């Protein structure tokens, strides 16, 4: 089964209740006041947030559409436009590309690290995993077990070790083995914890010290079930680490991660990857058409 099919299948489960979904609204309605109210409700229920929703509704109201179908296309186009990012450069050739995976607790960073490694393996690289979650009990064990299951090499230390030291070790090993990809899982931390956020800054600094020729990619993991707190997360992580992009996980649930649109309204933060299941293959590059389709469907 192709990634697309799997993603579609995942989405189909969520789509069971069609009446709840946006597209349905455009199938049955005229542009009366009830329609606008329903549109507002549906956009908000997709976690787009009040401000973004009101802007979109205003924008739609200004245009006069001849048919609901035309209105739907316009909405789709407007949403797609907010996601107009340049394609991410995944690998810079002849360099060690270091992916640092960060995020708040429970978003699926460890699973994502393995999935990302698998993604690069399929593109012909031999990624090294670095278990820099030295805080959570059994955090590095989880990565080790999963890595072993899928035969990836891992660098790790005991719990409580300095996360930056583990990264240093890992990168030194990757560098001396002339690897092109290393991926570090880090401990989940709430963005409100300044001390823990500073630790990430330190990891970044130490990484550049470990190999000056490093190409660093920081990716912030956010999960689709989040509400508008995701904005606060992106904002704070951006201030402290300026991540290159986002990874949106747990798209196999009923939530579709509409806050991604709200995030773009404030900060341009491209989504690089999506995760949509427990299997290692349930992971792919972000595809804005599919994302919007799922959001609206």
């Amino acid at each position: 089964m192709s990634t697309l099919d799997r993603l579609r299948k995942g989405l189909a489960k969520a789509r069971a209740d069609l009446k709840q979904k946006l597209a349905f609204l455009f199938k049955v309605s005229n542009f009366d006041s009830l329609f606008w109210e329903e549109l507002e409700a549906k956009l908000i229920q997709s976690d787009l947030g009040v401000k973004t929703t009101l802007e979109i509704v205003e924008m739609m109201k200004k245009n006069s559409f001849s048919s609901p179908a035309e209105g739907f296309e316009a909405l789709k186009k407007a949403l797609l436009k907010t996601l107009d990012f340049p394609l991410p450069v995944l690998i810079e050739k002849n360099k060690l590309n270091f992916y640092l995976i960060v995020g708040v607790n429970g978003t699926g960073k460890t699973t994502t690290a393995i999935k990302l490694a698998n993604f690069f393996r399929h593109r012909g690289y031999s990624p090294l995993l670095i278990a820099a979650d030295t805080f959570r009990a059994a955090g590095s064990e989880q990565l080790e077990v999963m890595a072993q299951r899928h035969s990836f090499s891992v660098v790790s230390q005991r719990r409580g070790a300095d996360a930056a030291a583990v990264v240093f070790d890992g990168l030194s090993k990757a560098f001396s083995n002339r690897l092109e990809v290393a991926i570090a899982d880090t401990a989940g931390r709430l963005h409100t914890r300044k001390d823990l956020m500073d630790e990430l800054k330190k990891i970044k600094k130490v990484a550049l010290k470990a190999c000056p020729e490093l190409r660093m990619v920081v990716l912030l993991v956010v999960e689709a079930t989040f509400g508008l707190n995701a904005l606060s997360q992106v904002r704070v992580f951006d201030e402290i680490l300026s991540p290159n992009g986002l990874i949106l996980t747990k798209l196999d649930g009923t939530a579709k991660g509409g806050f991604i649109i709200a995030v773009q309204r404030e900060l341009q933060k491209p989504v690089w990857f999506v995760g949509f299941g427990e299997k290692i293959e349930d992971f792919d590059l972000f595809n804005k058409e599919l994302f919007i389709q799922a959001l609206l469907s």
Partner: protein
Amino acid sequence: MFEALTEKIQAALSGFFSRGKLTEKQIKDGLRELKLVLLEADVNYQVVKEFIAEVEGRAIGQDVIESITPAQQIVKIIHDEMVRILGSSKKEFDSRPPYPFLVMLVGLQGVGKTTAVVKLGNFLKKRGMKPLLVAADLRRAAAQEQLAILAEECSLAVFSEGKTSSELIKQSLEKARNEGFDVVIADTAGRLHLDEDLMGEVRELKEAYNPRYTLFVLDSMVGQDALNQAVQFDEKIGFDGMILTKLDGDARGGAALSAVKVTGKPIYFVSDGERVQNFQEFYPERMATRILGMGDILTLVERAQAEMDLKKAKEIEKKMAKAQFDLSDFLLQLEELEKLGPIGEILKYLPGGAKLRALPLDEKKIKHMKAIVQSMTLEERKNPSIIKGKRKERIAKGSGTSLLEVNQLLRGFEELQKIMKEMAKGKGKIPFLFGKDFFK
């Protein structure tokens, strides 16, 4: 980040000094602001609609209590209603015999179930109980190790021998009976509410071992989807209550209101930190305040109502309305402010209080301010513009302060008067507190 609800509603209301019954327009304007605040706090859209309708029903025709503004009154009604909903199903967690009883934690991936199992175990241990934790999450790699390590750190017993979740729970209950454990707390694998197989598996566990409590663990950062998750877990498994996690972040936690309103099940506990002790019983008051993003302003309003000399306040208010507020009145207000209690504590109640606490305002500062005004002649208090070089020096000396402080106070008072004038025009603030700009 968010302005206080009161300020927003206040801004939305016209006619700051209006008295009598709450008008329909005031309520409508206030509730429109409330809708935005609730949606920004991630309360589910449907729940917001219902909630607003309920509040509206309660607010219409209510008398405005003397000495608080219509905005404050509306906020109070809103707050009370939210507390009522959040707490309507509040029950004590029943930890009485017969022992052993089973508690099972369920929820989606990554909400913090394993941590919550240990925290709940520790909480019950502090109550004098003897808990046994069961590592029944066999799906996630190293989940059992995680539980074992955390449990060891607070000397809790863990059971983890068994090939299936069912076997694990069965044998742990047996062990509990034989070895005198009071409560068995089972961790389960995270699962998606759409996954029929995995949901069925938990339902079977529930039917087979009849836990006293099946608790749904909800992440406070979840958005609109909280409603879906809660409904589906309740329909497919049936839970008795909830644990709300990750409240140490800055999520407003509207998910809590959505989940309680739609399932009618109580929240028993909240988890708000990385440490095992960061786990408490749920207080509807605190949650309502958090969702509304307003600090404990109501506590302050209530205290102010109790403590303020209402007659004096009325006089001051009248003068403010005519913009005749002078330094003598200011002195009175300082005295009223002192009555409210330690400044640090008051600021704690105010929205954005943390920011205010950074301002140079404490008991000492207020004492100095009082001393400065007390060192002025009545003429000077009425007409501060006559206070120039020589007078300033005298006042500084008389009050045991410095020229700098005298200047600061005079400048601040000038600003305050400007605010008062604006208030008199109807764009006001809470009358018995100074505009916070005063202390900048």
